[in-house]
């Protein structure tokens, strides 16, 4: 035994802009000037130059044939490289090693690279997300060049990406990464209106608060932002900011919504960006600036996040506003009492909702995604932190990503049902920009039986969603 298996690993990540290098024909020039960021720094300059050179060659070669979009990936026998050109001349490149299995056959071991287990659509999405996350905090690369200089840009990249790369769990990414979706919490009318009132009141009282978003646990209840902007904010909140704070909180916070107790009445409302301890604060502390892009122009905001019990309220304050400690104090005084009653209502509503029975391997698992509002629901994933904590086998998830890829050939509306060699059934349906995937593990089931089961599930899980009849 002793077979060595390896998961997908990050080999390198770099950003370059050929325009910063020597002019064409100038062979003596310093090629390294093109490179704005390179990970890992342990690769020597020769390797860095070669890697960038290859990408430049590939970009040029592929353009010869007029592809419908710029080059997105390179497959070699052991590696996968993904490309993204977010701004003119800037290329962001991610290199991954293919997963490996070692097989022992007749006493000889052989290493096999599982090319198909590294899916382009998943990692292209991860690469784009890395850039968009950078852009959320620093604006475009060009913006930094225009307002500051090249060295500042390099420094910002260094600080941001080095930390970001450490935080992504590269081998646990799957179809959810492609969606980059948002989880919403549906509520009863009264509670929802209460929240909307609360938000409207704040926005009119402090008119420099341009937008507000309201979350309960990791679910959005209200967001005044465009979905595309909210998408990155949501990734940041659920992926970085909230988990870091939940750990430090004394109570409440991370409890799943179904078990959140309405008896917790003590409130611990506080700012988690800004002055985190208002009583002792002398300054306003750290408030991140974010850049939002959806409304056809770049807008700069202070992102102030307030958290009480399981609720998180995000305020997007006009970037030009000078923030003062007193504003925070006033805001806190206003929010604190109102929020605890709202949270109680939400918790009460949630506890009344039917709790899905504990899942067995035979329970069908599903993933739903709506491209219009970026909403997703998954009973496959036990959390949304890419921990690999999933309720079906990884191959079924990969089959879903395959289907997502091939569904593009089916046009706007289509459905597909497949049976894998280990007797899983995977179903997919696309209609009205909504996507629905189901995994069923039923031995000895027939296609007809599974089709009926799928139909039933669509009716129960998606009863209020209109699918074009097929």
């Amino acid at each position, binding site marked *: 035994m002793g077979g060595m298996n390896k998961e997908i690993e990050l080999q390198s990540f770099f950003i370059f802009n050929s325009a910063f290098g020597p002019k064409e024909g100038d062979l003596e020039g310093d090629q390294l000037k093109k490179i704005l960021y390179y990970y890992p720094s342990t690769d020597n300059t020769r390797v860095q130059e070669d890697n960038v050179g*290859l990408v430049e060659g590939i970009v040029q070669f592929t353009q010869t044939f*007029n592809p*419908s*979009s710029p080059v997105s*990936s390179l497959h070699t026998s052991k*590696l996968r490289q993904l490309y993204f050109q977010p701004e003119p001349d800037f290329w962001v490149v991610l290199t991954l090693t293919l997963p490996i299995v070692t097989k022992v056959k007749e006493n000889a071991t052989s290493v096999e690279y599982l090319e198909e287990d590294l899916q382009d659509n998943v990692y292209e999405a991860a690469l784009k997300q890395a850039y968009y996350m950078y852009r959320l905090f620093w604006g475009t690369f060009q913006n930094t060049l225009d307002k500051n200089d090249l060295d500042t840009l390099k420094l910002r990249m260094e600080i941001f990406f080095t930390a970001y790369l450490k935080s992504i769990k590269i081998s646990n990414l799957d179809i959810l990464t492609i969606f980059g979706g948002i989880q919403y919490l549906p509520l009863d009318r009264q509670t929802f209106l209460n929240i909307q009132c609360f938000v409207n009141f704040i926005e009119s009282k402090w008119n420099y608060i341009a937008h507000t978003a309201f979350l309960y646990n990791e679910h959005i209840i209200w967001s005044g932002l465009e979905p595309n902007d909210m998408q990155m904010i949501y990734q940041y909140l659920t992926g970085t900011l909230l988990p870091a704070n939940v750990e430090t909180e004394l109570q409440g916070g991370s409890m799943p919504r179904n078990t959140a107790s309405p008896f917790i009445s003590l409130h611990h409302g506080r700012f988690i960006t800004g002055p985190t301890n208002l009583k002792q604060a002398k300054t306003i502390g750290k408030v991140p600036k974010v850049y939002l892009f959806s409304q056809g122009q770049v807008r700069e905001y202070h992102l102030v996040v307030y958290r009480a019990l399981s609720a998180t309220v995000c305020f997007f304050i006009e970037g030009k506003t000078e923030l003062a400690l007193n504003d925070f104090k006033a805001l806190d005084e206003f929010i604190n009492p109102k929020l605890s009653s709202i949270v109680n209502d939400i918790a009460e509503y949630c506890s009344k909702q039917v709790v899905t029975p504990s899942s067995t391997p035979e329970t069908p698992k599903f993933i739903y995604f709506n491209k219009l509002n970026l909403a997703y629901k998954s009973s496959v994933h036990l959390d949304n932190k890419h921990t690999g904590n999933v309720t079906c086998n990884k191959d079924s998830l990969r089959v879903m990503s395959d289907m997502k890829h091939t569904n593009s*050939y089916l046009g706007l*509306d289509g459905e597909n049902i497949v049976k894998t060699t280990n007797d899983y059934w995977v179903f997919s349906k696309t209609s009205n920009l909504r996507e629905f995937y189901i995994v069923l593990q039923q031995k000895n089931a027939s296609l007809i039986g599974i089709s009926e089961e799928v139909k039933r599930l669509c009716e129960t899980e998606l009863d209020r969603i209109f699918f074009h009849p097929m």
Partner: protein
Amino acid sequence: MADFDVEPGAARDNVLVASESFENFEQMSSSLEEIMSVNAISTAAEIEDDTTTNTQEDITHNQENGSEINEKQEDVENSLDWTNKRKHIFVISTAGKPIYSRYGNEDKLAWLFGVMLGLFRYSRDSIKSIHAGDTTYVFLSKKPLILVAVSKTGECVNQLTLQLNYVFNQIVSMLTLKRLTKIYDEKANYDLRRLLTGVDRLIDHLLDFSENEPAFTLGAIQCLPLAISERDSISKIIKDACSKIRNLVFAILLGNNRLISLVQMKKYHLHPADLHLIFNLVQATESLKYSESWTPLCLPRFDNSGYLYAHVSYLADDCQACLLLLTVEKDVFFPLSEAKQKIVEKLRMGNNLEHINTSLAALEESALATGFPELRHYLYKCKSTVQFYQPALCPPYTKNKVRLIELYKRAHQKMHCPTRPLKLSFERSSDEAVFSWDTKGFELYAVFEPLIDTASAINCVSKLLNWIKKREDKLFHLNAYTF
């Protein structure tokens, strides 16, 4: 589901070597030396090589006039028309010499060949594919050549690699791998086009062929429908006429891209990939219709190191089936010509020619005509005999066969993903519903009307399998005859 024990089309003796279409292409099934030594006949391999060089160079000479005309044409290589071709194929030697380009003149594309070679070397020979929007770029290294496909057809990397393998095999079939390697060992920057004039046309045709025929994707052969007694009697006539001829390895009778009969030397089997090359040769070479020909031919999957010699002729003016007699002897044209005459006489006497003609003229019926109104088209492949059957095209695919073939290619790819193969898939779009099924014994791909419900589709599939089973002895080549 369907009521039979053995899948339709299965036979006790396999006529062809059963294989998966994506399997390792280098594996050969046989050895010419073995045939030679077993039959203890002269093995003057070296002399063979020389004679073929001569004949090939004669052809080169004849075609030189043709290439001058080409040079007067405008620079198609820079035009948008050239850029937007759906599938480019390039062949370069590892030393960077242009060998083949599907569109445009290789010499004018020298810069592009340079770039491709550069990328290949720069990536330490490991580059497999590049993806950019609708365009897929596939690289295949087959020493001493590098083959590249640039495609906007939506075909996946495996399908394109398969086609590049066919192109390589087409080149090998003219030169043998032994000779190809030797040429480059001796002179790394040799201009292979000197030896390959005429092969261009074959490669062109092969590529068109593989874009229009499901046979390549399935790695299987389709037979001309004939009553079993009829096929047996034809095979027997061929066998009897050739039984006295030493070292005859294969006798192949084909028509209309369909196999009619295959008789082979004991213990030796033909690989479907080789048979595809033979079909291609016959289809692409109009001149074979007018006279008997004698041509050296290497079958790469059979033995890529040496030539077989083929006597190629059409049966008669009134019967457009083509007979190929393949031997390891390089100077038996006349005995084979006599044998052919004998075969034709007997076939004529036994009314076999008439039956072949009837079947050639009739072709397959559409699924609709055979009582499956919701079934538009299907492919059935029997795995053990690597033979397949497809009905005639019917609307909406009659005008756009390529779309149907690409549909099948996608379905096939989906079923055969190396790490996640599927057993079954039912896919529905607003245009059609595609049912794919891969079992131990067979593969089935069926295209239905889009609105068919699942139960009727399943019902139709099981009726279809029974229908095929009932006609298996007509649709497939079941009995193997040997010399």
